[in-house]
């Protein structure tokens, strides 16, 4: 546990890192903790369609009179879940197979690389659209897997390149000479030296997943309903909210939420640089 505390402190040392921590932490609290306190307001209130911001409704109301802020609070959870899961799956695949390909070499390497290259040359958005249109993914897990299935290839190539270079390091050679085994060489000797790389890529995989899922939702390909920033945008567009000045906040607030969340992620990533520098570790 103390490792996490020192890590967080190290991130907070840079202004960007601090901003990122606060931002991401804030959004996590917003998406997971606040809903425990504040109930979801789903009741239609025809008298209050597209109200501008007021004390009762800080972001105004939507096309059915529902409070927008409430929807922002509840709308983050799915987005974050999918982003995290998608990043997790794609990173896990990339790390496992990228390091394996580089370490083992030969035909396995060639095979993995070939598959990765095919996935890389495929136009992601179009495939996503087509697959989503056919399969209509409606669950968080399904969407996350779909997004991950196209995202892993780029990171795999980079992990493979990093591993190829680390493979030549003398301490790796020593580990092989000491007969420490493939698992140890990959997971104990090489991967810890790539930790910063992997962590930063994880964060950027999350940002990519956020954009991809919001894109799919706005295009109406994902039959998600309920409070969801992407769904808000979709509804805003289909309900014509972008044409009225009164409904300005209904359109703007999910965009703001998404953008701020992305910025927090990026800030967190830049704060991570120093954290993994072994020279900062003391006994």
């Amino acid at each position: 546990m103390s490792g996490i505390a020192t890590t967080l402190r190290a991130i907070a040392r840079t202004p960007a890192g601090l901003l990122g921590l606060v931002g991401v932490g804030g959004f996590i609290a917003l998406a997971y903790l606040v809903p425990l306190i504040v109930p979801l307001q789903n009741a239609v209130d025809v008298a209050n369609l597209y109200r501008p911001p007021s004390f009762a409704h800080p972001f105004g109301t939507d096309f059915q009179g529902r409070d927008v802020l409430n929807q922002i609070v509840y709308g983050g959870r799915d987005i974050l879940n999918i982003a995290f899961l998608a990043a997790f799956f794609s990173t896990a695949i990339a790390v496992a197979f990228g390091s394996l390909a580089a370490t083992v070499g030969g035909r396995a390497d060639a095979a993995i690389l070939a598959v990765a290259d095919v996935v890389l040359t495929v136009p992601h958005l179009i495939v996503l659209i087509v697959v989503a249109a056919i399969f209509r993914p409606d669950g968080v897990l399904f969407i996350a897997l779909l997004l991950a299935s196209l995202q892993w290839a780029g990171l795999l190539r980079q992990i493979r390149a990093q591993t190829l270079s680390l493979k030549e390091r003398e301490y790796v050679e020593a580990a092989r000479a000491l007969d420490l085994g493939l698992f140890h060489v990959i997971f104990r000797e090489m991967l810890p030296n790539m930790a910063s790389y992997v962590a930063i890529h994880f964060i950027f995989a999350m940002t990519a997943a956020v954009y991809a899922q919001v894109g799919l939702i706005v295009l109406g390909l994902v039959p998600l309903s309920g409070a969801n920033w992407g769904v808000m945008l979709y509804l805003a567009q289909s309900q014509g909210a972008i044409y009225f000045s009164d409904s300005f906040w209904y359109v703007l607030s999910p965009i703001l939420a998404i953008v701020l969340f992305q910025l927090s992620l990026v800030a967190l990533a830049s704060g991570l640089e120093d954290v993994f520098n072994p020279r900062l570790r003391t006994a």
Partner: protein
Amino acid sequence: MIELDRVTRTFSTPGGTITAVSEVSLAFGAGEVMCLVGESGCGKTTTGRLLAGLLRPSSGRLLFDGGDVWATRGADLGRFRRGVQLVHQDPYASLNPVRTVYDTLSAPLFRHGKARGHDGAVRLIRALLERVGLTPPDDLLPKYPHQLSGGQRQRVAIARALTVDPRVIVADEAVSMVDVSIRVTLLDLLLGLRDELGVTIVLITHDLAVARYFARHGRIGVMYLGRVVELAPAERLVADPAHPYTAALIGAVPEADPAVTRAKRRVPLRGTEIPSLLALPPGCAFHPRCPLFEAGLCDVLVPAVLPIPSEREVACHVAVRERTRVAAPA
């Protein structure tokens, strides 16, 4: 005990095929000390890596306890790997920067069943650190490599090699990047391992004076462009070099004594250019620069490594001829 038998190793590069090591035969018994010296490109590092089993010969055999290493698999190959360990040149690169001394040294102990549990490992590691002169050992266990000096790192690297009870240690320029003032203790440490544990030590170096000190009870092998050109006990080699290249090297080394070094006689060489490994001269690779060059012989026939009096070997037509003639009874 360990032997390279007519080993050749080539590398393919965009420019062509390089023969880094060519028909090298070296045999070592237990507890032997040998220094391989030569300039860059001579193949000494490649030879060291071939010995340690980190490179596979393109032709020829690597023999360990009589068996061909590259013909074995599995458990036998593993046993060989642990039997021969390599200590690298660069103390800043030889240890994993994200692992502590404890992590680095305990991994092989656990892996090969020499220690069970944290306490057992600590006990063994303490003994290892003391043996390589790192005291007090407990201070070092939690340290990361960047918190250690170059000399300390090299000692940890040697301790790491010792975790698997090797029978041969190949030290590839292991003292070249360490300060002069502490080189000697590292060299003495390695020699001490020979005395106490009977480990065969092969030191690869470009520094002839270091070779003379280190191999004073052993042999020095001089390499040039992938071949062994001379092999002799250290003092005999330095006092009376048989191969003209050895003589040129000895004459060229500056010494830490102004009167001696400024009066030193150089061996004049016929050319200054070192041939590229992509285009080796025919016959003896040294002939374009050799003061003893004999046309029709040296540029045609590759000299074999042949024995000459007093337990020495040399690969030079002229040297072999002159020295065996003198020794032959009238």
